[in-house]
C-alpha cells in the first residue's frame, strides 16, 4: 500500500516533475541552460550546492579559484571569448562582497555573467547573522537585475529569468542570492526557459524609417567615419559590419572594447579611438561630416572634451540601449536596436561608394604616427626593451591569431595598440572599470573557454600582484596560459601622469618587487626573466611552444610613456605624439 505522499510523487513524476533539493534544482537549471563550466569558491552558506556539485561532475566543470574576485573575472572572460554567459558561485558575506569588483567590471563592459551567491537561512536574514551581508542591496547599482530566493520552488523560474535577462538586449551581469534553507529543502522541479517578461522588452521592432533616413545621410556624406564598439561583438555583427564598410567604402575606427570586431589589417581599418588611440582616427573624428556609431556609448576616454567633439559631423547612433542615446553626445538620428539587425537592413539600401581621398588623409596621419611613435617603440636599436616592442613581437610570432588578455594601465594600452587582431573576440580587457588585477584570472577564464587557442596575457608588475594568487588555480588545473609581465618596477600609467601632470613627483608608484621567476617556480610554472633584446625572440618562441603554462618576466624601460595621448580636458584633435 502506497502512502499518500508516494502517490503524489508518482503523479508529479508522470507530469514531468522531479522531487529534488533546491541545490540540485539549481544545477539542473544550469545544465538546461547549456552551462558546462562554473568558476567559484565555496563557504558555509553555499555548502549544499557544492555538495550536490560532486554528483554532477561529469556535466559541470567547477574551477576553484583562489579568491572570489578571480572567479568573477574568469567567468567574465569565459563569456567574452565564448559568447555564452559566464557562471560564478560564491558564499554569503565576504564571499559575496569579494565578487563586487568583478560584478561591476562585467556591468560596465556589458558582459553576461550569472552570479549565484548563497545567503544565510531565511529566518536569520536581517539579524546580522554570521556571514550575513545584504548582497542584494550592495550589488543593486552594478547588476542588470538581481533577486533573492528564499523558497526552493522559486529557484527554476528565477534562474530562467536570470539567464534571459543576462543574455538578451544589452547583456549584463545578474545576481541570484539563494538562502541556505532554500538550497536544502525540496521542490517539485520542472524547468521552463524564460523568453518573455511583461516589463522588459529586449527585442525592439525595427524602426525602418530612421534607418532609411540614415541611408540617405550615408549616401550623401563626403567624409564619413564608422565608430565600432563592443556592441558589434556582442551582437555578433562582425560580418555585417565588414559587408557594410566594404560596400560603402567608409573607414572603421574602433573603441578599446570594439577591437577585434574588424580586422586590424583591413584597408578600411582606421585604428583605435580615444585617449591612447591612433593619431588619424582621433584627429579625423573632428574632420568627419558624418559619424556612424555602432554599439558604442561615447565614453569620456573615447570623446575627450565633449564640447569640442565631432562638431562638424552629423551623428547616427545605432545602439541597443536607449539610455545611452543622447546621454553624452547629442545625435541626429537615433536607431535604438541591435547592431546586427540594423546593419542587415541598412546595407542593402546604401550606395556602393569609395572615399579614396578621405582614406588617404588617414594614411598620412598613420605615416606620421609610425615615424614618430610606432617605429621607435617597436624597433628600437639600443636601450632597454620597450613594451610596444614586446607586444609587436608576440603579434608577429602568433600571426595575430592568439587571444590577448590584458591587465590595466600601460600594458593594456600597448597590447591594444601593437597587437594586430584578426579574429573576433580575441581581445579581453577591462574597459569601463579599468580593474587592475583583471588580467591573470581573466586569462584563466579565456583559456578554459577556448582551450584550442593560444591565450597570452600581458600584465604589469603592479596588476599581477593584485591577483597573483591565481597562479594556484593555474597550477591546480594545469591551465596552459602564457603570462608576460611587462616589468618596469612602477605603476606605469599613474607614473606617466605624475610625469606629465604632477611635476614628476612619483608619489607611491615605485614598486619593490619579489623574484617573479622564483614565485612562478613555486607554483610549478616554468618561468624566465628576459632583459636583453637578443633574448626576446627566442624566449617568446619557447613560451609559445611550451605545453603547459609559462611565465616571462620581461624587464622593460623604467620610464616609458604611452603615446599618442589626448590629455584630460583636451579635444580628440589635440592628440599629442610626444611630450
Amino acid at each position, binding site marked *: 500500500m502506497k502512502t499518500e505522499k508516494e502517490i503524489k510523487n508518482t503523479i508529479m513524476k508522470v507530469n514531468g516533475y522531479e522531487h529534488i533539493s533546491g541545490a540540485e534544482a539549481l544545477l539542473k537549471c544550469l545544465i538546461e541552460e547549456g552551462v558546462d563550466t562554473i568558476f567559484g569558491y565555496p563557504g558555509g552558506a553555499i555548502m549544499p550546492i557544492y555538495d550536490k556539485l560532486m554528483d554532477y561532475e561529469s556535466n559541470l566543470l567547477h574551477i576553484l579559484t583562489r579568491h572570489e574576485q578571480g572567479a568573477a573575472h574568469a567567468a567574465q572572460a569565459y563569456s567574452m571569448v565564448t*559568447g555564452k554567459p559566464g557562471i560564478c558561485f560564491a558564499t554569503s558575506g565576504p564571499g559575496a562582497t569579494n565578487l563586487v569588483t568583478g560584478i561591476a567590471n562585467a556591468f560596465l563592459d556589458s558582459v553576461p555573467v550569472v552570479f549565484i551567491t548563497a545567503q544565510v537561512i531565511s529566518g536569520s536574514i536581517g539579524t546580522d547573522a554570521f556571514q550575513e551581508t545584504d548582497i542584494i542591496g550592495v550589488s*543593486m547599482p552594478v547588476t542588470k537585475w538581481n533577486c533573492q530566493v528564499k523558497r526552493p520552488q522559486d529557484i527554476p523560474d528565477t534562474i530562467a529569468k536570470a539567464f534571459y535577462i543576462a543574455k538578451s538586449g544589452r547583456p549584463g551581469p545578474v545576481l541570484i542570492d539563494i538562502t541556505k534553507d532554500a538550497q536544502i529543502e525540496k521542490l517539485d522541479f520542472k524547468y521552463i526557459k524564460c523568453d518573455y517578461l511583461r516589463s522588459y522588452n529586449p527585442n525592439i521592432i525595427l524602426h525602418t524609417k530612421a534607418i532609411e533616413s540614415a541611408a540617405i545621410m550615408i549616401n550623401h556624406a563626403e567624409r564619413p567615419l564608422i565608430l565600432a564598439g563592443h556592441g558589434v561583438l556582442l551582437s555578433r555583427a562582425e560580418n555585417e559590419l565588414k559587408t557594410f564598410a566594404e560596400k560603402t567604402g567608409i573607414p572603421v575606427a574602433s573603441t578599446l572594447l570594439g577591437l577585434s570586431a574588424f580586422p586590424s589589417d583591413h584597408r578600411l581599418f582606421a585604428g583605435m579611438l580615444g585617449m591612447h588611440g591612433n593619431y588619424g582616427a582621433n584627429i579625423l573624428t573632428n574632420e568627419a561630416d558624418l559619424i556612424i556609431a555602432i554599439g558604442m556609448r561615447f565614453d569620456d576616454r573615447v570623446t575627450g572634451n565633449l564640447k569640442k567633439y565631432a562638431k562638424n559631423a552629423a551623428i547616427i547612433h545605432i545602439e541597443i540601449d536607449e539610455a545611452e542615446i*543622447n546621454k553624452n553626445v547629442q545625435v541626429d538620428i537615433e536607431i535604438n536596436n541591435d547592431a546586427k539587425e540594423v546593419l542587415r537592413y541598412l546595407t542593402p539600401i546604401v550606395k556602393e561608394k569609395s572615399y579614396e581621398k578621405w582614406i588617404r588623409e588617414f594614411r598620412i596621419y598613420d605615416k606620421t604616427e609610425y615615424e614618430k611613435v610606432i617605429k621607435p617603440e617597436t624597433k628600437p636599436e639600443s636601450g632597454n626593451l620597450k613594451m610596444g616592442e614586446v607586444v609587436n613581437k608576440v603579434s608577429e610570432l602568433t600571426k595575430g591569431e592568439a587571444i590577448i588578455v590584458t591587465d590595466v594601465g600601460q600594458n593594456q594600452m600597448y597590447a591594444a595598440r601593437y597587437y594586430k587582431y584578426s579574429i573576433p573576440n580575441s581581445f579581453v580587457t577591462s574597459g569601463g572599470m579599468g580593474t587592475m588585477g583583471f588580467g591573470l584570472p581573466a586569462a584563466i577564464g579565456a583559456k578554459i573557454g577556448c582551450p584550442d587557442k593560444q591565450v597570452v596575457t600581458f600584465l604589469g608588475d603592479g596588476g599581477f600582484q593584485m591577483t597573483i594568487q591565481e597562479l594556484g588555480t593555474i597550477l591546480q588545473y594545469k591551465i596552459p596560459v602564457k603570462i608576460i609581465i611587462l616589468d618596469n618596477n612602477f605603476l606605469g600609467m599613474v607614473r606617466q601622469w605624475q610625469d606629465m601632470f604632477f611635476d614628476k613627483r612619483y608619489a607611491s608608484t615605485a614598486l619593490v618587487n619579489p623574484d617573479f621567476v622564483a614565485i612562478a617556480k613555486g607554483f610549478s610554472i616554468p618561468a624566465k626573466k628576459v632583459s636583453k633584446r637578443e633574448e626576446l625572440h627566442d624566449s617568446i618562441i619557447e613560451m609559445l611552444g611550451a605545453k603547459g603554462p609559462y611565465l616571462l618576466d620581461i624587464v622593460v624601460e623604467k620610464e616609458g610613456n604611452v603615446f599618442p595621448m589626448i590629455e584630460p580636458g583636451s579635444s580628440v584633435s589635440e592628440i599629442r605624439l610626444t611630450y
Partner: protein
Amino acid sequence: MKQEFTISLFTEDHIGILGQITIILTRRQINIDSLTASESAVKGVHLLTIVVKTTSEMIQKVARQMEKLVDVLKVFTHSSDQIIYQEIALFKISTNSLMSGNIIDHVVRAHHARILEVSPEYIILEKTGNKTEITDLLSQLEPYGVLQFARSGRVAVTKQVKELNSYLKEMDEANRYKPEEMQVVN
C-alpha cells in the same frame, strides 16, 4: 534651466524597485521633492509619483535610465501644465488659540479646508490643494501655534487621453516580436 517635473513610473510589484530608482536620481544629484507610492488602475501594476526639479535634458536622461530597469514597465515625465495634481495636508492646532472670535470659521471657509475633529484640546484641519495653497494656509495658521503639520506627496493624473493599458498592449506586441535569427548571445 531647472523646472519642476512629475515622474510617473509604472512598475511591477517587486521588492527593491524604489531603491533602484532612487540610485538613478542620487547619481545625477537630483533631490526628490516628493514621492508617493500607490496601486495603479491596472491590477498588479504599481505607480510611483516623484516630483523633482531639474533640466529638461536631464529629465529625459534619467527617464530612459529608469525605463531600462527590468521591473519598470513605463515611465512618463510631465511638466506641471500637463497634469492634474493634488496634495493633502493635516494641521493640528490648539483649540484655545483659535477660540477668540470667528477665526476658525473664517479660515476654513476662505481656504476650502475641512474640520476633521474638534476636541477641548485641539482641532484637526484637512486641506487638499497644490503646494502653494497648503503653504498659504500654513502661514495663516502659524500665529495661532501649529502643534503638528503633515503633508502628503503629490498624486497626479495626466491630461493626455492615451492610458497605460494601451501602452501595455503595444509593449506586449513589441515583446512578442522576435527577429528572424533570435538570439543575441548563445
